[in-house]
């Protein structure tokens, strides 16, 4: 009964989705890093779905940026997806850090999966 789960979803086949729900900070950042390692280990594209996340802090952004860098090094797709209604505890930090084009952040899990499949992994690196 984890109120803030982070699970891998393999349904899309060649793109693995890391589904992040609830509040995440320095306490759960190590778990996210593990899941991201696992996802990168699968060899395909990676999507991190924040649709059901209610709060993420800079430790979480740090974990995402590290994973993105590794995906880029391996020329793999890496995309973050959000829902149509983004929680203030997620939207605000993405907005003010200017990370939307960088990560990149895309609306909708399906669109993110397609982009990751195409090898998208953010603005010019």
């Amino acid at each position: 009964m984890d109120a803030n789960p982070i699970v891998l979803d393999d349904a899309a086949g060649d793109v693995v989705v890391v589904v992040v729900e609830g509040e995440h900070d320095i306490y759960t950042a190590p778990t996210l890093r593990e899941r991201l390692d696992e996802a990168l280990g699968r060899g395909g594209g990676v999507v991190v779905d924040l649709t059901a996340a209610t709060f993420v802090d800079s430790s979480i952004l740090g974990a995402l940026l590290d994973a993105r860098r590794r995906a880029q090094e391996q020329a793999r797709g890496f995309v973050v997806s959000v829902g149509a209604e983004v929680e203030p505890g997620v939207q605000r930090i993405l907005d003010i850090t200017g990370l939307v084009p960088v990560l990149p952040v895309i609306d909708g899990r399906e669109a993110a999966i397609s982009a990751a499949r195409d090898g998208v992994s953010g603005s010019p690196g």
Partner: protein
Amino acid sequence: MTERPEVRLTMAALPEGVGVVRQALAGMADALAFDQGVLADMKMAVTEACTNVVVHAYADDGSDGTADTLEVDLLADELGLTVVVRDRGSGIKPRAARSTPALGLGLPLIAALSDAFEVRGSSGGGTEVRMTFHYMRDADPVESNPIGETGWVPPDRPT
């Protein structure tokens, strides 16, 4: 404004404490009928300040068995709520003395999200971060403290 805190939260400087502070703050702001946008900013800024205490304030992650504390004071006045995050740790060291590479996003976020902020040495040694959040805002504080101006640059951003 009196300096006696309305409420003081004291706990161990551990990763799980950060969420406890955030939730307690949210619960109390609920009682104050706080604006939801300001509350979201306050939760974010206070999270970053507490994270810094957990990550940076104490040298050896509590392995020496001493009580590495995280203290959070809430002070309310007519204009807004001031949150003070305090530790008894090593104090902020010059940049060269730091070892671990980090995002460096915590203090810039605190500056951007608060209506006023101050970082200073705490009287007990260690560091004190004071952040004020107004009940009513004329403008978004991010406008006057854009993160770019604090020196933070997103990685790989076309410059």
